């Protein structure tokens, strides 16, 4: 037996002794209820469980004596009733009858407006729910109410709608005579598209985007001056090459435009300005199938010379329709050119003579 075993045995024995004698196995007493009991005798118990004492069976009750034969019972006699005294209204003999009212013949009572017809609820004129676009399952946007819940004052328009375009006059302090101030007016906006009633509520989104504005006219850039003498020869060579490329050496100089040509933006600006006044709304369908080419000479201030507006060519229409189409084109040039088209004066030679082709193919009634 080695020392380890001795130590282990001693420790275990010590541990067991400590557990037994140290109170490690003592259990706590369980909780219990305590009831106080009183001991009673059997007699007392018998008295407790005995039934209640019965009441007396006989009671002294006074019973009436039966009536004897031949004796009629006392019948209560009703006392003569006397009417209660009621207060009668006093009659005043001197009272005069009510005066006869003045009879005024009244007309027949007003007749109520009664109709045999059942009242009919007027349906909304435009049933949005029914008029969903046929081609799209998406619901159409509901129109905003057109009447405001609260009356509000109409806002001042930006410009007054008039038949004539007119800019607001500004007082000139330096002028000797003051001119009357004029109000800015503008013509009513026109449409370039026909929307039928059948199409009105189906349009859930604009079908065409807004045309971008034309690029503003650039100010003419001043040509750079050549200061270096040594580069003069090279510049001349480049200019010569440019002139040759642009055909500047063809023909006499007087019969062709001089100066730079119009840019695409400038040409677009002119085109948009003319088409703004090209009204085809009153043209016949034949005239709308007629293309006319019109020439016009322009003054330096950008205004067309009215007497020079001529019909050069036409296609697609008869004689009367050509005249209608030409008249519409001429009106467009004159109307929108009355204040001068916005064309660069330095390029006057390029737009001194203009040929305009009016092609109403996109505006045609199909």
């Amino acid at each position, binding site marked *: 037996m080695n020392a380890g075993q001795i130590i282990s045995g001693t420790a275990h024995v010590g541990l067991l002794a400590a557990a037994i004698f140290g109170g490690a196995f003592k259990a706590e007493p369980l909780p219990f209820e305590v009831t106080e009991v009183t001991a009673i005798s059997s007699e007392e118990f018998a008295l407790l469980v005995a039934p209640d004492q019965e009441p007396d069976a006989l009671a002294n009750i006074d019973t009436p004596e039966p009536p004897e034969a031949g004796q009629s019972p006392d019948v209560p006699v009703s006392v003569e009733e006397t009417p209660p005294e009621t207060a009668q209204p006093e009659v005043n003999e001197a009272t005069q009858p009510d005066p006869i009212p003045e009879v005024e013949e009244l007309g027949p009572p007003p007749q109520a407006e009664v109709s045999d017809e059942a009242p*009919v*609820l007027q*349906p909304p004129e435009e049933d949005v729910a029914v008029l969903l676009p046929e081609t799209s399952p998406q619901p159409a946007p509901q129109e905003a109410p057109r009447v405001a819940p609260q009356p509000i004052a109409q806002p001042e328009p930006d410009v007054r709608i008039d038949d004539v375009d007119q800019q607001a006059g500004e007082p000139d302090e330096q002028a000797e005579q003051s001119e009357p101030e004029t109000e800015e007016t503008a013509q009513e906006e026109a449409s*370039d598209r026909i929307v039928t009633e059948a199409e009105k509520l189906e349009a859930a989104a604009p079908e065409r985007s807004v045309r971008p504005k034309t690029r503003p006219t650039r100010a003419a850039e001043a040509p750079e001056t050549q200061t270096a003498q040594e580069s003069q020869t090279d510049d001349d060579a480049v200019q010569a090459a*440019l002139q040759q490329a642009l055909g500047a050496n063809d023909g006499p100089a007087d019969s062709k435009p001089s100066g730079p040509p119009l840019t695409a933006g400038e040409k677009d600006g002119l085109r948009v300005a003319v088409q703004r006044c090209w009204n*085809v709304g009153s043209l016949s369908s034949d005239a709308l199938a007629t293309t006319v080419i019109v020439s016009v000479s322009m003054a330096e201030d950008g205004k067309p010379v009215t007497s020079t507006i001529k019909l050069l060519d036409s296609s697609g229409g008869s004689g009367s329709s050509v005249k209608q189409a030409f008249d519409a084109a001429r009106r467009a040039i004159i109307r929108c050119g009355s204040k001068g088209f916005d064309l660069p004066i330095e390029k006057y030679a390029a737009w*001194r003579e203009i040929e305009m*082709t009016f092609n109403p193919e*996109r505006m045609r009634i199909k």
Partner: protein
Amino acid sequence: MRKWIQCLTAFAILFAAPTFTLAQEGDGPLRIEITEGVIEPLPYAIPDMVAETAQAEDLARQISRVIAADLSGTGLFREIPRNAHIARVTNFSSPVQFADWKAINAQALITGGVSVDGSGKLVVRFRLHDVFAGEDIGDGLQLVGTTDGWRRIAHKVADQVYSRLTGEDPYFDSRVVFVAETGPKNARQKQIGIMDYDGENVVYLTGSNSIVLAPRFSPSGNNLLYTSFESGFPKIYLLNIGNLSQQELRTPQGEMSFSPRFGPDGQTVVYSLTSGGNTDLYALNIANGQGQRLTAAPSIETAPSFSPDGSRIVFESDRSGSPQLYIMSSKGGDAQRISFGQGRYGTPVWSPRGDLIAFTKQSKGRFHIGVMRTDGSEERLLTASFLDEGPTWSPNGRVIMFTRETQGAGGRAALHSVDITGRNLRQVPTNTGASDPSWSPLLQ
């Protein structure tokens, strides 16, 4: 380095030169193409015509107003209010101050003079001016008539102006025959009325003791065809507008004859006849009484309408399962279907121009008046409402009149007109309910 940059620039310009050349298009004038314009009423001015005699003062003003109403009613023109006029026309023969009219943007100007001569004749003279061109449009014109017929003279003047400005044939001097409706919806009384195209001068041609339907003008405008239930069954009658004499059309023995329409010759009538539960199209020459059966299908064929040249007939048939539009020869035979859209098509009417067919379409609970090409292409719906039906063409084929009925037991039928572009939808004023219009040719 500088030389190199200049040479590079020169080469770039040389290559770009053709582009510049094309933009300038060589030596010629500047060329631009206008492909998009605006669609707006043409502004015009019509000051009161000059009363040249004392008796003509009221007439001058009234005639001017009727002319303005005709022109503005088209939606193609817009009258400039008279209080905006700068110039005053006091003499018909005085020169026109074009600058004054140009200042108010009047593109057309109508001036006129009215007088009543010693015999009581009404004399109206007028001129049409192109303000911006500073010249007359056409020659001045003088019309003479009775004072009672001043409205017709006004319509004639408006017709001339309309035709000169638009290039279209006129239509103001025309009449419309229609079914006047009175009483509640479940007990409507119907009678045939005739009026000016603008709703004036209404005259009733029949009584209201029987139901009448579908009056149709003859090409001359002197006779009417209509359907009446006077005998208990629908029968077709021919009515002379001048003396109001009427006679029943001798149609084959059948149950019902209805939906008549004249051919362009004024002698041939095409109509529907129901016999043995089947409805087919028949033609009848009212001059010699000869008839012809045009269709023999087990389906319902009705609402026939001749082409302007009389060679073809467009009609409605449900032979495909739903009412659709078909075209066949006026002699009968095979028919070609022309409507293929969703919905039900009916009451086709051929345009006087011959290029379009107007129709009624029912789709998704809505009724439409629409037009399509004679081959069925380019269908366009012009209107949409609870109930639109029965289109009829103006004499020039530019305007369509039709019936629009409102919803409910108290619904009322009224006549409306719309331009074939779909613009200018407006109600034709009538004193009673009105339906089933038929537009006359231009009066002579």
